[in-house]
């Protein structure tokens, strides 16, 4: 049994402790916005926030995250209203979209530490892989989200843990 704090609520789950957080989120809690891409922490499709840090949930055993605040893409807002989500929509970033949950959460973490990131900051912090090649729009959306946050636009209905 492990107890996890996910998107602001506690969940007690009966699962083997070596199970990666990714599969607990997807298969036990039906939070399927977090994606499996590589299983080795290489691609970033499974990125979630652990106490605000971007973390690749496919290589984190569930036993290691008890007591930490976990935010998944579903917890970012109730209505796609987080500035990063809105910037993503306005720049029409996704193509196939499979990597985008991870991209968005990596961006949320980046903007928390660097509210006005340079291109170099983006290059070094957003290491998620996108096979559709949406990278230039990802970059534009990050800058747009930074401007939105700078202008005081706070997420409407967003999770306080994000």
């Amino acid at each position, binding site marked *: 049994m492990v107890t996890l704090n996910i998107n602001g609520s506690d969940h007690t789950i009966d699962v083997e402790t070596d199970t990666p957080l990714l599969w607990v989120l997807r298969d036990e809690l039906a939070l399927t916005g977090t994606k499996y891409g590589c299983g080795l922490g290489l691609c970033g499709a499974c990125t979630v926030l652990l106490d605000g840090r971007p973390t690749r949930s496919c290589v984190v055993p569930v036993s290691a995250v008890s007591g930490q605040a976990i935010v998944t893409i579903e917890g970012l807002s109730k209505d796609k209203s987080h500035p990063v989500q809105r910037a993503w929509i306005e720049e029409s970033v996704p193509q196939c979209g499979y990597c985008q949950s991870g991209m968005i959460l990596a961006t949320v973490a980046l903007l928390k530490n660097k509210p006005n990131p340079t291109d170099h900051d983006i290059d070094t912090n957003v290491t998620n892989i996108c096979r559709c090649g*949406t990278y230039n729009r990802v970059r534009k959306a990050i800058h747009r989200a930074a401007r939105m946050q700078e202008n005081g636009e706070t997420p409407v209905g967003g999770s306080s843990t994000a």
Partner: protein
Amino acid sequence: MSDITRRAFVGGAVALTGLTLSLELPAQETARQAAPGVPRPPRTPSAFLQIGEDDRITIITPAVEMGQGGHTSLPMIIMEELGGNWDRLRVVDAPAAAIYNNPLFGLQATVGSFSVRGWYLELRRIGAAARVMLLQAAAQTWKVSPEHCVADGSEVIHDSSGRRCSFGSVARLAASLPIPQNPLLKTVAQYTMIGSSPPRVDVPDKVDGSARYGIDVTLPDMLYAAVKTCPTFGGKLKSLDDSACRSMPAYRATVRLADGVVVVAQSYWQARKALERVKVEYELGPLAGLDSEKVSQQLHAGFAEPGFVARHDGKVEAALAGAAKVLESVYEVPYLAHACMEPMNCTARVTDAGCEIWCGTQNPQAAQAAAATALGIAPARVQVHVQYLGGGFGRRGEADYVTQAVLAAKATQGKPVKLIWSREEDIQHDFYRPAAAIRFRGGLDAAGKLVALEAKIISASAPAIGRPGAPPFFVEAVEDANYRIPNFYVTGLNKDLGVRFGFWRSVNHSHNPFMLEGFIDELARAAGKDPYLFRREMLQHGSEGARRQLAVLDLMAQKANWQHPPAGHAFGISAFEAFGSFIGTIVEVSVKDRFVTIHRVVQAIDCGVAIHPDNISAQLEGGMAFGLTAAVRGEITLRNGAVMQANFNDYPALALSEMPLVESYIVPSTAAPGGVGEPGTGPIAPSLGNAIYAATGQRLRSLPLSRHRLSLKVART
């Protein structure tokens, strides 16, 4: 309506409310028709478009959504003629049914950049027919002439009185009216929706995790399956011992495949762990000794073997003998994997009544057929639920993963099974872009004019889609070059080495242009001519293809300021016809200490009528990134008959930090639409190779750059 279509609709996926058009429009040929003899079922409008009394417009799209925008661009074509309000639109994937076969090639497959090309005329006719019926219904209600009514924003408006009514309010009456057989279509100049860039319908659900991909399907009592197959191509399962996993509480079943094993468990992680405990022995098969060196040797050996003639203009041998200068070069490219971000997966439920499958697929009828074959039942008993695709790129046109899931579900007494491949399985059991080699000989006259070109192409060729009996088409992007070359001889040798191969984004245009446009560049340099002007000269002969390719060449040369590269930088150029469009790229680089720095990428396309310009730009950028990954480091290598790469560490994709600045330009055109999903992939490799030559004098005749100890850097302004 066929039985399967009717059943799927009545079954609940699409509610039949209001306007349901059940008569048939006569089949009409599209402008660029292919394939004589391809069966062309009459199109039933209600299979594509339904308008509810609640004003909801439901469009059932025959193109799946894998990132290329089919869920937006095809509805735009209907909505243009219908006059519908974009905000009322709901888009639904079509079930597997022949009525959704692409008019251009006769299959229900989202491949070959065919979706807009194939459906452009038919969907306009469906939208226009519905508009006429709605106008007539409103006119009847108002007792006015329909000629004085127009449709706009999901309303019918009477021009003199200004009366308005919603589509929904007259939908039921409209549905009872006869379907006009030849509704008047708009001209390109009248378009208001086509050529605008409405928000893509799939985007909002892709920013909050609610978009449902195949891998996200969740059903009551669902079990999970992991799979492992023989590492060598053509290998078979010899024996398995699953005694070590049978004691695991979550274990449910072991399923033998001809070439591997599936383990079913109560969770996916448990299935993976159980699979690791299964001891498997394989018969490695006849390819167990194959490695990349032998592949290369066999391709090169093909140059001495007879092939088939794909193009024969003039007398090449005589022209080469009389040429002032003759060049000979051999080019080669490796196997490539697709590496879709979403690993292959399928969920299946098998009961006495039949089978249901849920997956991302580019070819629902192929998925249906694979399931039917695996179970020995009629395809009509297999229902396919198409989901979003986490990348397709040609890989999801295959149905191997469907077969595996269905066989697993057959062993679970009616409980659904979700089978998910590991990334390692995905990289090592792909249908690879085939390795290929071309030997060129080219002859220049004393004035530096290309008078003779001979190309011998060695590769494995997938069958030409929708053209049964047609010659192998891996010679395309060479034999159909728009350049005027008086003596032009192209042969091909279809060399299947036993390595699984298939369609990879832009198919033969992913690599043949690297080789042809590289050799054209060599010839230009040997002639002492500017590579852009050398190409220009060969496109002055006035054919439609040459004229449009020339316009693309000129546009990007102008945008890049071709004659004046920044100090210390060099340009590379290439352009060609692909998927009914004309595409070109100029790359600006500098090279220092084995690092190739890309400063700028300029792309131009003539894709005929541009349906959704913003998405066209996205596709050109994305296609370029796909091609750049391959050009820089994409390589699947073999040892002992098995693929050596397994994950993104040894088959790395382009990173965000490596994505260059890209400018994309669209040539204004009123021609019938061409494809946009694939053309952008091909030009980056030749343009990059040509730019590296311009910067260093080193000619790259094989890919990837990493073979030549070159690495990529990207300049940020």
